[in-house]
Each structure stands twice: as C-alpha cells, then as structure tokens.
C-alpha cells in the first residue's frame, strides 16, 4: 500500500507508532505532486520548503509526545484564497500573482498549531467566481476522473488534489457551492460549514456574507477531524459564532444508525433538468438512509426558484466592493507606465482581472448605484429572508434535507464557459444554502459514465454534527467514497 492511500486516521496511527515520519509522508506527497499534478494542475503553488520544515517540526512533536493532535504531521493543501504567511496567495488572479501575505488566516494558523503540514495552494476560479476553475487567471484544473471534464469550482483545485491523492485533505471555501460542487464532481467529501462556524479572518473575500471555509477530504470521518481543528470563535472575525465546537469525531464513533432522524426531500430540487442518473442515484441513497432508520418525508422550499438571481445580485454587489482594494497601490499587480492615479487604477485592473471578474464588478457597481439600490440589492436581501424562512420552516419538522449537489455530473471543459448564464444555472442546488447560512455536506453517492455523483445533506445552522453523523452512517454502508480515479494508482 502506497502512503498516499492512507486516510488521516491510518496515517496518524503510523505517525504515532513512529512507523513512518511526517517528513517521509510529506516527501512522498511532494514527489507524487511532482509526478501526477502536471496532468491535473490542481496546485498553483507548491510550498515544498515550508512543508519539509513543518514536517520536521511535527516529527519533533511526535517524538516528544507533546501537543500531538490527530492532524499533527498530516500533509494538506489549501485553496489559494486563504492567506498563508510567506506563501504566495493569488486567488488564481493575475492581480495577485506576486502577492505574498505577511500573516496567516486563522484557519491556517489553527492547523499550524495542530502541527499539520501545508503542501501548497490549490487552483480556483479567480476570486471564487466560477463553477469550473476555467476562470482561473492561470490555468484550468482537470477532473482527475476524466481530464476532458472540469473539476467543478471554485475550489476545483482542492477537490482534484484530494481525489488524485495529492494531499490528505484540503481546506476549501464555499461562497455558493464552491466546496460542494467540486467535491461532487471529483467524488470526494466536502463540508460547507455554517456561516460563522470557521473564522473568515485572512480568507480573501468574494462575498463577505456568504463565504465559509470548510474541509474537503476522503471521508466524512476525515472531514470531521479537520472541522474540529479549524472551527471556533475568533475575536478577529466579528461574524464568527461563539457557540462551542462539538466533538464531531467522537459523535461519529457513537453513531450506529439514523433512527429518530427525520430527513426531508425538497420537491423543488428534483425537477426538470436533473440528469436521470443523478436522480436515480439520489433515490437509491435516500432508500439507504431509510434502511438506516431515518424517516423520509417530502418538504417544500417554495422560494427556491429565486435563489439564483438573489444569490448573484448580492454576490455582484459585495464582490464589486471587496475587489476595490486591488488598485495597484499597496500590493499585487501595479502597472508602472501610468500618468495619473486614475490611469494606475484603470491599467492595473484592466490587466489584472479576468473577463468574468470584470463582468461581475460592473454588474455589482450598477446594482449598488443610486436609484437602483432599492430595486436590486435591497429587494434581493428581502427575498433572501424569504428563502431563509423556507429553510427554517422545513427544519421545524426535519433534522436534515437531502438533494443532489448538481443537476449533472462534471461537464466538459469549454462546455459552459462561453455562456455565463448557463454556468450560473449549474449552481441551482447549492446557492440557496449560502443565502440561508446553513451547513451542507457533499458526499459521493454514485457514478455515471465514469464520473462521480454527489449527494447534498443540509441541516439547520450549526447542525454540523448531525450532518456528519448522517454522512458517516451512509459511508459506513456504501463504498462510493472509496472509489478512486485512474491516476490514483500512479505512484512515483
């Protein structure tokens, strides 16, 4: 068995018993990245030196037996929107191509304290704007299952890296499906956390009121370990929640069935446009949940149809403001051949931002303009409240809801990139969750033509434990999450 086939628990045990060192484990991953990643292109930056340094420190800890956690010495990757001190952080944008933060985001800092090993930073759609990584300012990441297909987005690099065995887990970020959709397309487990459960400090924002950092891993069990390490209140993020972090991994160990849980199936998520194979995989999965003891009921989320326009309107507006700081004055790209401040702004932003980013900045600027604010931004916020209430109502009778993550499996590279609206519509099953701020778990639940299918399990705010228990029970009865793409077998 190659080391990259170990899951976090297995690797942890070998590290603890000193059968393998973190330096060896990390070295194996770095070698594998060098060999396999050129075909997949999941990494934007590989932080080899730092990884070896952190691995050695982890080995010291393990040797002394002090401060050892389940993630000590475990190599991982992080989406390139998470600020990493001393490691280039680009958001896959040309405007940040040469930007190296001088501070760590809180989630990374927590993994540093846990003794984890950062292998590098993964590709994404520029600033998180896309569903395929085709909007990366650098290159498109390939779906490890089929290189002609997209890995999903925007955390496509993270999903592909986990699926191809190029890291034991990855930190993704979900603004409107950016963890769940690529997790579904690449056949890995991804958790979109409740808004405020994981600090956003140091996360380069797309939409401040939707952004959430979450784990992407090979199993629910691994995801639970990562969540335990990164969740919690942070004084530096006023929107982070003070509720104590639960012992998710312990809760999983105690779960034997799903008896007593009522799971709702929102009818609006199983409609026209849903791929028949996705539909049948989901129906099978739901039956398995039932056999595990869950009660299945149909529910309605009547405002679902408005989720896409509301989501995008708020996104455009907030993003236009969040992206204003990239002006060539303090960091990142700065066009030098300019004759005024305005000229600096125009030339820097013209050269630094990709087409989709520019489109969204313009749309957002328009939506916030005097005379249009009420009609667009304000109305969108009102409808957002209705969508949130839909969920609240559903959760009065249900503990969780199950839907597909995406209407189809991974689409082909180039298939939707010329039609932005078509691309936006691929987010139909995921964005409402960000509008509501609730958590949602994506787990593999089938295959169609060699491409994975994902199931979305959502619950009320801060119900991560319930979702992980459901996902874990499902994975204990099924083997979809243990299937690997052909590149899995490539070894250095």
């Amino acid at each position, binding site marked *: 068995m190659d080391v990259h086939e170990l899951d976090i628990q297995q690797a942890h045990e070998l590290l603890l018993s000193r059968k393998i060192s973190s330096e060896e484990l990390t070295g194996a991953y770095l070698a594998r990245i060098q060999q396999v990643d050129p075909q997949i292109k999941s990494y934007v930056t590989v932080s080899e030196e730092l990884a070896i340094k952190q691995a050695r420190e982890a080995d010291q800890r393990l040797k002394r037996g002090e401060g050892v956690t389940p993630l000590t010495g475990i190599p991982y990757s992080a989406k390139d929107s998470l600020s990493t001190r001393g490691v280039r952080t680009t958001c896959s944008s040309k405007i940040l191509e040469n930007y190296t933060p001088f501070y760590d985001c809180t989630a990374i800092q927590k993994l540093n304290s846990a003794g984890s090993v950062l292998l590098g930073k993964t590709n994404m759609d520029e600033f998180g704007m896309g569903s395929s990584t085709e909007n990366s300012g650098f290159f498109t990441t390939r779906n490890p299952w089929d290189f002609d297909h997209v890995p999903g987005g925007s955390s496509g690099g993270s999903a592909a890296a986990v699926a191809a065995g190029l890291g034991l887990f990855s930190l993704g970020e979900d603004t409107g499906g950016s963890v769940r959709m690529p997790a579904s397309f690449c056949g890995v487990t991804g958790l979109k956390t409740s808004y405020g459960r994981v600090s956003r400090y140091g996360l380069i924002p797309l939409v401040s009121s939707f952004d959430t950092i979450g784990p992407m891993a090979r199993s629910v069990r691994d995801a639970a370990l990562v969540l335990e390490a990164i969740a919690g209140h942070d004084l530096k993020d006023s929107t982070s929640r003070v509720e104590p972090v639960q012992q998710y991994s312990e809760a999983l160990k105690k779960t034997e069935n799903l008896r007593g849980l009522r799971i709702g199936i929102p009818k609006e998520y199983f409609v026209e446009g849903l791929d028949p194979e996705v539909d049948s995989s989901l129906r099978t999965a739901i039956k398995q949940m039932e056999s595990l003891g869950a009660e299945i009921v149909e529910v309605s989320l009547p405002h679902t149809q408005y989720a896409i326009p509301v989501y995008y309107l708020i996104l455009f507006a907030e993003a236009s*403001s969040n992206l204003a700081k990239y002006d060539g004055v303090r960091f990142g790209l700065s066009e030098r051949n300019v004759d005024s401040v305005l000229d600096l702004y125009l030339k820097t932003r013209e050269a630094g931002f990709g087409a989709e980013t520019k489109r969204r900045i313009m749309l957002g600027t328009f939506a916030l303009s*005097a005379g249009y604010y009420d009609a667009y931004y304000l109305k969108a916020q009102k409808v957002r409240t209705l969508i949130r209430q839909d969920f609240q109502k559903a959760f009065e009778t249900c503990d969780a809801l199950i839907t597909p993550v995406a209407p189809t499996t991974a689409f082909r590279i180039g298939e939707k990139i010329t039609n932005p609206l078509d691309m936006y519509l691929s987010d139909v099953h995921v964005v409402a969750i960000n509008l509501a701020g609730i958590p949602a778990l994506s787990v593999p639940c089938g295959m169609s033509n060699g491409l994975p299918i994902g199931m979305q399990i959502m619950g009320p705010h801060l119900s991560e434990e319930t979702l992980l228990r459901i996902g874990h029970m499902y994975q204990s009865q099924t083997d979809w999450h243990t299937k690997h793409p052909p590149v899995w077998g490539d070894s250095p």
Partner: protein
Amino acid sequence: MKYEPVIGLEVHAELLTKSKMFCGCEVVDSIAAKPNRYICPVCTGQPGALPVINQKAIELAVRVGLALGCEIHTESIFARKNYFYPDLPKGYQISQYDQPLATNGKIQIETETGIKDVRIRRVHLEEDTGKLSHADGHSFIDYNRSGVPLLEIVTEPDLRSPEEVKVYATKLHAILRYLDVNSGDMEKGVIRFEANISVREEGSDQFNTRTEIKNLNSFRALTQSTEYEIKRQTEIYQSGGTVEQETLGFNEATGKTYSQRGKESAHDYRYFPEPDLPPLIVEQGWIDSIRASLPELPEAKTRRFVEQYELKTQEARLLTAEKALADYFESVVEKSKSSPRTVSSWIAGEFMRHLNDLNIDVTNIPVPAEDLAILIDMVTDKKVSGNSGKVVLSEVFKNGGKPDEIVKEKNLAQVSDEGFIQETITKILNENPKEVEQYLAGKETILQWLMGQVARATRGKADPTLARELLIQSLDNLKQQQNG
C-alpha cells in the same frame, strides 16, 4: 433684494481612543510619528483582514450623542462608503449611513441676534483615511492615521451667518473637549469642517442649490470661506445667474473657494451595509451609565458660576470656555480666602494675558492653583500691593518659584508704616511745587500722577489705600494753609 445664507455644518472629530476604530493599532500623533509604523493588515486593507469594532470609540460617541441631546439608537448599522483614493486602503470607508448611532440633537448658540437652537441631524462613527503627501514628483502615503476613529456630527441647515457658524463650531469644539473625546488640537487636524452653503431671498423658505466646502481645518478658514462663498453666491443671484451644485476647496492664501468637482462628477458612494460587521447593539443599561457619568457641560457650568460665585455671565463664560480653565478657577477659589470675583478677575485678566503671551494651553497651566491662591490672598491681605502682585505673577510665569519667596527675595512686601509713607509724600510734594499748585488750582487729575510718584519712590510697596489717604490729607492741609 436682500439675501440670506442657509448653512449646514459637518464636523469630523478624531476620537481620543488608545487604539484605532477597527484594529488594535495605536493611535499616534500623525504629524510627529514616523510614517507607516502604526499599521497592520486591517488598517492597510490587506486581503482577508477583517474589522472589529473598538468599544471605547462607541462609548465616546454615545457620550457626545447624549451631550448633544440626541436619541441614541440601541441598534445601528455600519455601512461601506465606496470610492477610490490612494489614502483609502480598502477602496471603501466603513461609516454609518441610513441607520446612524445617534440622531435629533441640538446645540444652543448665542449671537448678537439672540439665542437659537441649531439642530443636530445625526452623529455617527467612521474611520479616518491615511495621509497623502507629495514631493519631487512622487506621492507618499502614511497609513498611521488610517482607521483612526472619527465622529461625524451633522447639523440641519439651521445656520444663517458666518458668525453663527463660528459660534456653533466654537461651542461644539468646547463640548468635545469637555467630554474628553477629542484633543481639540486644531493644528493637528483632529477637527475638520465641511460647510454646505446656499443663499436665498430673505424671508423665503425655499432651499436653493448648495455648494459644499470641504476640508476646513481651522475656525478662521471656516469663517473666511463661508463669508466668501456667501458673497460669491449672492453676487451670482444679483447678476441674474444661477449657482452650480459643486464641491469646493478653500485656498487660505487667497481667501477664495475653488471648484473641485461638479455635479456630473459627484461621487456615487454605493452605500450598503458592511457585511463584515454585525449590527451595532448598544444596550440601554450602558447608555444610562454613560449618561450618569457625563461631566457638567459649558452651559450648565456658566449658569452655576454665575449663581454660586456671583460672577457676571460674560466672565463666567470666559472661565468655562475650557474645562481645564474652569477647573483651575474652582481649585484656586477653594484654596483662597479671597472672594471668587477677585479670583475671577485675576484669572480672566493678568493670568490669561500671560497664558496667551506665552502661548500656553489651559490644559498645561504651569502655576499650581495653590500658588495663585497664595498670591491673590497676599494682595487681598495688603501684604503686597496690586502692582507688586502683578510683578510676582509675571516672575512666576517667567522663572517659576513660589510667590511668597519671590516677595521676600525681591523685597516687595507692602509697606503700611504711616510715618515712612508720610515722609515720602512730604518729600514728593516739596520736590514738585508746580504740580501741587496745579492741583490746588483745581486740576484733580494731578492726584493720580502724584500717586504714581509715591509708588515709584516706594518701588510699589506702599499700601495704595493708605498712601492715597495720606496724600489727600497732605494736599488738603496745603489747601487750608493757602486759603488761610
């Protein structure tokens, strides 16, 4: 046709907090400190950094809101004000917009035309920008000031003359210092004004097109620019023209306003609620405890001084203009056995003159209240003459030292020895027969001159009341001799 100005004022005051509005960076003197030493990811707008509200800034803002009689809103919202400028690191300023912290207050002002209320529309919090400077064809940015808490205090368009503007601004300045929320250090730009001005026919209740003068950093600039702008607009109307809506700057050298931006290029700030901050909740209990700890404000203090110390209103107002001065006065009164009015006339007179001459701020008075009390009491007890008292005070200001010791050193103790004074008077009258003759002929002003001679001969030490009595008596004796 007569015209009247309609003026509204926006005041930006830096709050006296230790740290910045949304991060832990120290607030420093932005003129003295080395550039870009007091900065962090938050106040330089690094990607991913997030704001956290400074509780102290909220407390100070509530204090001001309460002092101005505003309604304090238990829930208010921070909003992003979006515009591009190199001194604005995030590309937006975190401010408050449609739901500010405090609304509907007032400040009462008194001018030659009477007493009136100036309504305060709103008081809200925001963050300051960095500072730009330009040299040798380069531009430099200092972010030390970026993120310093700023309070914006906005009036309704209630002001009707540059005089009212000045009185209002001066009064607000004093209130902010009283509340200990702002250093009042105008030279350092800790208070900045913006005036919105329009002009209309007197008696009209319409509002005409207004212009906005930005960045006025002194009372002088504020008054001069409003005067100029009122004149400019009035002349436009008188010649049948129309005033353009625009943003103006003020050139202190020429005393003129100039156009910075026309209506077409006016900013659309695209305000929206700041998603990085939850609504600001200020508990009623906290508001109540801040209210309970509010200091006595200038107006109330003036009234109290008039009643308690029997001062004239004008005098009381002078003493209460600055809290430090009022405190000093009360401290001297407490330590002195002289009447409060005597203390007041000393402080308002000689004492203030020295402070002004030496350019000493009232927060920095170098003379301990106890010393001034001793000095005033020595004069009251006729241990030294009034004139000598003044000499001692000026010595205290110049070289320091204790008043009683200076009196000893300089041999300034007042002489009340009747024989000695009489001797001196007799000598002076003998030496100045011409002046004595003039006096006896009815020119009574000569008496004052003769008193001066006595003071000179005794080096100011003779008890003036006694000297005056003896002098008049001697002159009366001469008169009787002459008549007899």
